[in-house]
């Protein structure tokens, strides 16, 4: 079935995410925008996913628990999981690899963990806008071990992208798909980087504010409207070569 998607959205747990990006409000905004399946992808954590998934269940929209992982090369990678057990385990693992730098909300912004009614459970103490020790060469394998799927984020950006930071995408990284921003010319990118000629391409909003979330526009063909089907789909695509 064709599903309108947005696989890259931040909540108020990302230091740069707006206070109004609460699990309840962002999921309901996605519903209003006509999306069928969204992923919550905060920086280096999945701790607002349990709330967002619950809201998704009552709002009748599939919420994929996810993370925008920052690799040790400062390359951003969207990691998606079939359920909150898998995302929770991955989140805990990543937390153990982050530098022990305490957040300064006055500089970087608050990092709020919420329940499904938008009550603040607590603030995340460690700064999440840092880099894990996971390498971009190992991330695809690692995410699969945790039952998920991943793809490099906004590869057309000039910062935090695999192309800007490493200059290239290589087959050994083990990706099947990439993310481009809405500004990118897909045909031009496929031509310029033959490695993504046959790869899956996702266009996401990377919204940090409710007003930056996008109307339903891009679709993906899924077995069913669920997180598990998204992960399955990404992992069923051909590996880049």
């Amino acid at each position, binding site marked *: 079935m064709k599903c309108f998607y947005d696989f890259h959205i931040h909540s108020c747990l990302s230091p740069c995410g707006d206070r109004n990006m609460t699990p309840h409000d962002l999921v309901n905004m996605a519903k209003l925008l006509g999306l069928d399946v969204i992923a919550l992808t905060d920086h280096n954590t999945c701790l607002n996913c349990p709330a967002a998934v619950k809201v998704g269940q009552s709002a009748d929209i599939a919420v994929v628990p996810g993370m925008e992982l920052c690799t040790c090369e400062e390359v951003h990678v969207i990691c998606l999981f079939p359920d909150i057990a898998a995302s929770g385990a991955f989140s805990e693992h990543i937390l153990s690899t982050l530098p022990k730098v305490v957040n*300064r909300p006055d500089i970087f912004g608050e990092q709020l963990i919420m329940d499904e009614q938008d009550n603040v459970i607590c603030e995340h103490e460690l700064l999440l806008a840092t880099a894990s020790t996971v390498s971009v060469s190992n991330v695809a394998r690692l995410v699969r071990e945790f039952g998920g799927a991943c793809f490099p984020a906004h590869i057309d950006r000039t*910062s935090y992208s695999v192309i800007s930071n490493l200059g290239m995408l290589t087959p050994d990284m083990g990706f099947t798909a990439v993310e481009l921003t809405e500004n990118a010319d897909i045909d031009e990118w496929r031509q310029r980087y033959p490695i993504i000629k046959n790869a899956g391409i996702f266009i996401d909003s990377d919204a940090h504010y409710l007003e930056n979330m996008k109307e339903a526009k891009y679709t993906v063909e899924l077995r069913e409207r669920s997180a598990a089907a998204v992960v399955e789909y990404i992992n069923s695509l051909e590996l880049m070569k």
Partner: protein
Amino acid sequence: MDVRQLAEKLNAEVLCEGDMSREVTGCYIGDLLSWVMSRAQEGDAWLTVMGNINSIGVAVLADVACIVLTEGAALDADALNRAVQNGVNILRVEDNSYITAIAVAGSI
């Protein structure tokens, strides 16, 4: 040596002035912000080509004396605004980080 003297010594362009009388006590070179934030020391002159808004946050967090953008690297508008708000000293030079570090080393 303070930041103003360092700017003169490096013949640097001053992009943002905070407390230019701040003493420069060391030097750190790095472009991966996550490394810099956990390794740069208070009072360092931080040599980098990263002139985005996150660099300013890192400079405040690590409490460096100044950012020195090397090789004429760009400072974007958001970063400049944030630097003004936070009083972060930002210098810019055309030399690369190696040449700049040699000049810093001879002065502190």
